[in-house]
């Protein structure tokens, strides 16, 4: 099991991990997660590192077959998105969507227009905003189709913006980067893409989608109706705060903010808005890496770990020849699905997109078997409150707490990595006590001494 001592032995590295370092196979297998947790990633390495870390190494980006499958699945989703509104609606509701497609699509449209202007790809000055907003819109629509139980909820566009930013920037810097990630272009897909006139843009969109999917597999429960998970997380932050900083906790309660609902945005968006853009990226680097570390630390306890092989055997689209064709009426969108593990002769099962369970079969592709990113989110939110304790202690009432939380002062460079490191300490201390139930921080048992009152 990982311990904080072991972690402390790893010296922080100041130079961001480069794309060439990241791409070397020994690096990926042996050190990536560990090192990435102690330093940030170079911008160019993120498009490769994030999906890898988010799946705790389960996504193998060197596996041609896997890459091809992912491209095919994305292409299939695109075919659905490209159907007529009526047909998309029909599909969407048949998959257990909680609202009408037109409502989802409208909200996506509204929110995409209002996406942050912070990164270059969405800044008003760069002139790139108009070009990238349709990309964001398409990504969110595709996600909603792939995960109709969540569909679209506000905040998801905030999580999507950094993903688009990094892939767009990376493709500008390296025209071939999408090829590296996606492997050989599928002949069937090539035909389809040409027909759609999307070309290599399609590959980048596919990469963006799967990376976003990877993030959402950890965050999606936050966006479900009733907000049950966020409420639990808010309660967890409250308890953790009371353990690590009694005075801060009691002050917040005294001024009428004891429900800790002011942490809602922090938890929902993984501190995306509470930090400057580049610091938030570094925090994510580190949190994703620590998630991967923790995942492997817990792996022995989690025999039911979903691997990429599961995808290859359970949801794989059989072959280019069986790749679905959509006729003009969109009624033939079905794929044949092999079920026989490792066998070349698959008993063909027709997987119809109208079948209620189709989306669920897509679901587990990136799904990690535990929820360590959730634990890290709770812990880093708590660490953020403690970092700002002076400001919070100066608040006299709930409105002041809310205003502060929506406009936290900049704590300077390095805060992203610092928060991630403190979050890890909180979790590791809990782990060492053996009080961590499967995937959730047991905050009651944590008696962390890393912060003084």
């Amino acid at each position, binding site marked *: 099991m990982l311990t904080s001592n072991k972690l402390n032995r790893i010296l922080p590295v100041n130079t961001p991990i480069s794309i060439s370092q990241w791409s070397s196979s020994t690096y990926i297998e042996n050190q990536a997660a560990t090192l990435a947790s102690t330093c940030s990633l170079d911008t160019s390495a993120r498009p490769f590192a994030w999906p890898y870390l988010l799946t705790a190494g389960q996504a193998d980006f060197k596996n041609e077959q896997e890459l091809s499958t992912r491209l095919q699945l994305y292409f299939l989703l695109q075919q659905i998105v490209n159907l007529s509104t009526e047909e998309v609606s029909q599909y969407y509701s048949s998959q257990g969507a909680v609202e009408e497609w037109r*409502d989802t699509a*409208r*909200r996506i449209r*509204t*929110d995409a227009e*209002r*996406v*942050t*202007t912070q990164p270059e790809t969405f800044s008003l000055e760069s002139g790139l905003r108009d070009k990238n907003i349709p990309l964001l819109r398409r990504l969110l629509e595709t996600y909603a189709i792939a995960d109709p139980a969540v569909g679209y*909820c*506000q*905040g998801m*566009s*905030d999580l999507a913006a950094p993903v688009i930013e990094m892939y767009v920037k990376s493709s500008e810097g390296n025209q071939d980067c999408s090829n590296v990630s996606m492997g050989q272009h599928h002949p069937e897909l090539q035909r389809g893409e040409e027909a759609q006139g999307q070309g290599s843009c399609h590959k980048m969109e596919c990469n963006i989608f799967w990376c976003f999917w990877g993030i959402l597999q950890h965050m999606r429960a936050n*966006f*479900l*109706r*009733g*907000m*049950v998970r*966020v*409420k639990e997380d*808010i309660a967890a932050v409250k308890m953790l705060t009371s353990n690590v900083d009694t005075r801060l906790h009691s002050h917040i309660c005294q001024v009428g903010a004891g*429900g800790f*609902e*002011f942490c*809602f*945005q922090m938890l*929902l*968006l993984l501190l995306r*808005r509470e930090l400057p853009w580049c610091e938030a990226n570094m925090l994510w680097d580190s949190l994703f890496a620590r998630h991967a570390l923790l995942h492997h630390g817990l792996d022995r306890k989690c025999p039911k770990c979903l691997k990429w092989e599961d995808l290859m055997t359970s949801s794989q689209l059989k072959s280019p020849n069986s790749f679905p064709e959509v006729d003009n009426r969109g009624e033939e969108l079905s794929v044949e699905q092999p079920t026989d593990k490792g066998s070349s002769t698959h008993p063909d099962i027709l997987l119809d997109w109208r079948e209620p369970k189709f989306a669920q079969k897509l679901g587990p592709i990136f799904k990690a078997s535990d929820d360590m990113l959730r634990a890290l989110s709770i812990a880093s939110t708590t660490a953020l409150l403690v970092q700002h304790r002076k400001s919070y202690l100066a608040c006299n009432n709930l*409105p002041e707490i*809310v*205003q502060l939380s*929506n406009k936290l002062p900049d704590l300077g460079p390095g805060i992203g990595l610092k928060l991630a490191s403190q979050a890890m300490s909180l979790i590791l201390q809990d782990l060492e006590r053996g009080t961590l139930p499967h995937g959730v921080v047991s905050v009651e048992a944590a008696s962390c001494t890393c912060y003084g009152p």
Partner: protein
Amino acid sequence: MEEDFDRELKVLVVGNGGVGKTSMIRRFAKGIYTDEYKKTIGVDFLEKALFVDELQEEVRFMLWDTAGQEEFDAITRTYYRGAGAAVIAFSTTDRASFDAVAMWKSKVEAECGEIAVALVQNKVDLVDQAVVSATEVETLARKLGLKLYRTCVKEGINVTEVFVYLAELNQRKQQAAQPPVEMLPSKPKVLSAEPAENSITVDSGDNRAQTVDLAPSKKRTKGKKSLKDRMSSCSVA
């Protein structure tokens, strides 16, 4: 409490996402307008002190900006407590936001009871893209017993009036709930929260509310009147 020289009014601003709630609050509290590129997640808060002529006192408006996303209600509802007034906003260009008005009213009432509420149709400058007709908006306002304000937050038209009205209505509701020993100077009857069947209480844009008959006074301005002028006639239409 009545002796409080500092009258405080907690106002909730609710309505679907993207109708201009944050911009409205910012316009009222700070007098500025910026194209909003930040969706409200959860809630935000701003404060504004304003001397309300009709009440002859300064009111401190505690403005609670809530997220439009319905799912967030589970969190944002916790901030509803203690509100004395609410703005229900919808956009001229967003049909769903208009259709959701009744739902927002029920939500506010469920948490806060019968508090002072105003209905606000924002973005009336985008009349070319309107997806709701003046008549159906007025019909809904009548049905829900809400005073309707047509605002253009961008140009700062009719915004302050909404909050002034809410302060007055809140005062009257409080007086009605607890018959006071001393009454404030009488208010114009037209401020009734429940407009008469064939008329609608609208704001003429000059800080005074008035009741107008709907049918005969309909005017169309095809000329190049200022937006403010168009607003006035729009309110009446």
